[in-house]
């Protein structure tokens, strides 16, 4: 639609209240023989509408309301009338004058409006152009998962802990019931560094975040025995194993979970971890199974598998976590009496959770720093 045309229509609508004016002008039918006021209004409207600048409008105004203007002339013509006629005629002319003034004002406003609109039109911008300035970066998907895992466990009161990545043999293995030479040590190929710990054994890169179980529990054992506060903690962090191919990275992230109190059972482990998976994947449409396994630090031990009921991975059992009831020797190493305190621990791969969550097929993508990959998580 042409905005100019619309403005013109509005102007006409505002300025032509003729029917009511005519009615008011001829209340008793007397004026029917006198055509002047109606003619004046029509002429004024036409003249004002023809003006397209403020200056010409002021000229047109003089033609009606000036000293020799048409309305003024009508007023002058009243001198010869009787008082009774004056009264009627005066009212008619006043109405006419008001109508002309209203038309004038309307036209003035319309002209001002037109000029403002023209100015604004000249200032218009292309709103579809991109915004100015810098963009947004992104948090790494593994860290997104890390944070989500923390939030989910925090919702039932789990604390978060992290500690050293170069770790002592005792915390990584022996305290977890995996003494030197134990066959279970071959389950995890370990990186060693060129320094020995205070016990004379070589220091190592932690193969899991389970050492944090021991460190955290030793720091809080007093709260358990004195205040009856359970140990509820997750320990997410970097871990290392001598392994490198499409499905193994020499460095990866694990989240360890631990809940120790007077009565935390294997059934509770099943409840908590199943609930976690449902919350993490935001669906109840997945099955979880626990199957017997072996870890030196738990007994009974379970491998946790999950299976989606829909989506691209539907129907396949996927290993997601190791878990079990914390071994009494480990509880002893926490500084607690295993006779009195029991509970569960689990350890899950954060990359694994991330891959399943976002449909990522190749572990190596996490460590390449490729912006084309990372930008998808902005």
């Amino acid at each position: 639609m042409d905005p100019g045309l619309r403005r013109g229509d509005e102007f006409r609508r505002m300025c032509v209240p003729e029917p009511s004016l005519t009615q008011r002008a001829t209340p008793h039918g007397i004026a029917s023989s006198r055509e002047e006021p109606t003619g004046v209004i029509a002429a004024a409207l036409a003249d004002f509408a023809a003006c397209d600048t403020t200056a010409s409008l002021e000229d047109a105004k003089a033609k009606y309301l000036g000293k020799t203007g048409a309305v003024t002339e009508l007023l002058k013509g009243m001198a010869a009338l009787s008082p009774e006629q004056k009264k009627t005629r005066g009212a008619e002319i006043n109405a006419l004058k008001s109508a002309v003034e209203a038309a004038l004002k309307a036209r003035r406003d319309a002209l001002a409006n037109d000029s403002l609109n023209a100015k604004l039109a000249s200032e218009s911008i292309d709103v579809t152009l991109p915004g100015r300035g810098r963009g947004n970066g992104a948090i790494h998907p593994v860290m997104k998962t890390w944070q989500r895992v923390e939030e989910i466990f925090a919702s039932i009161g789990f604390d978060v802990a992290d500690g050293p990545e170069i770790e002592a043999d005792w915390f990584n293995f022996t305290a977890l019931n995996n003494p030197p030479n134990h066959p279970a040590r071959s389950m995890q190929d370990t990186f060693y560094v060129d320094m020995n710990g205070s016990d004379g054994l070589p220091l190592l890169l932690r193969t899991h975040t389970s050492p944090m179980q021991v460190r955290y529990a030793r720091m809080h054992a007093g709260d358990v025995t004195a205040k009856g506060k359970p140990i509820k903690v997750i320990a997410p962090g970097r871990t290392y194993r001598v392994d490198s191919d499409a499905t193994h990275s020499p460095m990866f992230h694990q989240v360890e979970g631990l809940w120790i109190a007077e009565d935390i059972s294997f059934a509770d482990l099943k409840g908590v971890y199943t609930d976690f998976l449902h919350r993490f994947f935001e669906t109840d449409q997945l099955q979880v199974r626990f199957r017997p396994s072996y870890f030196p630090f738990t007994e009974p031990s379970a491998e946790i598998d999950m299976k989606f009921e829909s989506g691209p991975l539907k129907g396949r059992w996927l290993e997601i976590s190791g878990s079990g009831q914390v071994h009494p020797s480990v509880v002893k190493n926490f500084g607690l009496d295993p006779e009195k305190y029991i509970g569960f621990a689990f350890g899950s791969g954060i990359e694994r959770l991330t891959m399943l969550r976002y449909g990522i097929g190749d572990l190596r993508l996490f460590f390449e720093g490729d912006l084309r990959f990372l930008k998808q998580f902005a």
Partner: protein
Amino acid sequence: MQFSESWLRSFCNPSLTTEQLAHALTMAGLEVEEVTPAAPPFTQVVVGEILTREKHPNADKLALCTVNVGAWSALPLQIVCGAPNARVGIKVPCALVGADLSAPAGKPFLITQATVRSVESNGMLCSARELGLSTDHGGLLELADDAPVGADIREYLSLNDSKFLIKLTPNKADCLSVYGVAREVHAITGAPLVAEPVASVTATLTEVLPVKVLAPDLCGRFAGRVIRGVNAKASTPAWMRERLEKSGQRSITALVDISNYVMLEVGRPTHVFDLDKVHGGLEVRWAKKGESLKLLNGNTVALDENVGILADAQAVESLAGIMGGDSTSVSLDTANVYVEAAFWHPLAIQGRARRFNFATDAGHRFERGVDWATIPAHLDRITALILEICGGEAGPMDDQIISIPERKPVTMRILRAQKVIGVAVSGDQMASIFTRLGLTHTRSPEAFTVTAPSFRFDIEIEEDLIEEIARIYGFDNIPAMPPLARAVMRSQPEAQRSLHALRARMASQDYFEVINYSFVDEAWERELIGNPDPIKLLNPIASQMAVMRSSLIPGMLANIQYNASHKADRVRVFELGKVFARDASVVDGALSVAGISQPLRLAGAAFGGALPEQWANPKRTTDFFDVKADLAAVLPDDVRFEAAEHPLLHPGRSARIVLGNATLGWLGELHPKHLARFELSSAPIVFELDVAPLQQLPVVSHVAVSKQPLVRRDMALVVTNSVHSDVLVTTMRAAAPAYVRGVEVFDVYRGAGLPDGAKSVAIRVLMQDTERTLADTEIEGACQQMLSAAKQQHGATLRT
């Protein structure tokens, strides 16, 4: 461990399908990793006997055979064959016309009547590869002489079978044999278990090889016997070969095969010595430093007091429980043997093979524990097999019991088991589980007392029994219950910014988070960071991942290089991770390891345009001040930037970031000399910060806003270029009265109108009193005080 389903079912045969059986094992803790058919599906292949063989009339390399296929054809079949070993009298698989070999061939392949070089051929003689049995394509698969002509090859070779590959956890030593797995199947399913295979041997010789066990902490029981007059060249019977092959064991010689067979069948590793190569008797003892042994596999290992050995009068002959020696090994010429079956204490074997960097099936079993009670029975079993297959005469068994483990009874309280599992498994259910597992027990109203059989090495404490109950009861039958716990409120300290919040801030400043390896190229540490002694990995997987990083920045430079090589012209990355350095001041603590500092750092790098290339802003390369502004999002307000040099950074464009008296981190432009190493066209701006101070976030303590008018005075001071703006500001602040609220640089100008080597620094001064309106004289006085201080200390002049 791998074995065939039919072998397992010969001991315990539950009415379950292959798939159900695999599932049942997996759910009992014997994870079945793979079930593969013994052979791909094919049809109409039968045992054929080559009756005649003539040269093909029209082809040099082909032969014309007539083959007897029994009832399948009244007359012998004429078949063209190219195999080099096709000869009269042998029995081979013969695919009849109509046979479908598509599956082994990997493409549609039907045997039809064919004409090969004008000669009719009515079938195909097959190699092992053509049937998908192995990759061997050396010639026709030769069957045993007694193979029944015309028999279906699938029946004859038991090909309608499956191979199970199970992944055993280290505690399941008792399942390292087919019989052991069968015991488990019995426990899980209740299907009857056939008794272990036994044999009785009558000694016809009296000879005994003298054996002295000198180390009771190494060898708990030692049994052996002499067998003379064996035929080492005898061929391994087909049934044994088939079971070995389906277990992934290649057939070697009869004596080796028999030893392997017994190990797979009942889990008993044995060792067969060539008796004629043994000098005098044997001694079982710990090795002495300086001794060495050439092993069966050809490697020579240096020994010491930590390794158990068998030695004869002259030399060390075997690595106890792990591997035999080369000099006494059996060969095809061996006539007389000594067969050993012993109990080696697990602690005496554990870790030994790994020390020498290899693994053996025997060592794998002994370090987990092998039944000592069945040694005589198993020695008889292997002897009987040797006599049956290789012939010979056996001497009496020499069985010495030195120090066998004691099986202490273990008590399991019913309530404790129910509490740990979280289900009220009944006492009767528990009793039935123990019985099925072969765990002898007595029962009181509250508890069971179990004495583990000699084949179990994983029953020492109450939890070991609770695990058995839970495992056989079925983890699936344990409900998943949300725990009941007291609802106690928790909160994050407001004065602590979380690492996630820190990450979010960096991301909102247009940086992408990366995760780089903690181990890096040693050259990075030495040459970029100037760290002469990084912490080294003893066993790195690659030389460019050989030392622990003490800085995150080189990794970021590699990230830029990677992305630039993929056509990215603007790269902004950050990482939050630990760095590692030797530090004698660190002691063992709740969260520390002596001798190493492992602080968390935040580092980042910005390369290319200050802004993404866009229509609205001119193109400009990121500089120091862009990144300095980005860092305002994470740095405390009261940090200072001091010009300082760093080996990685441009000496004139690098700053140490200081908080109080401590260095918080570094910010600067990469030194141009490092550009080439990372193939960079322009220098990125990099930074690295200690994370701990960035997490401090003091809780706000509100200060009332003054209602008095704010006065602003701007002044331009001319100083030499070497005067740093923050020094100027500090001087002016120090000279200013209390009502001066702010002194800030808002412009710097160099060029026309100023002397060479000088700059004009425009400074805005804000003044406001909390109580009253400032008088003009106070305002002017303050300006004069600040100006004269700047003049005195830095030679500043007011620009006019």
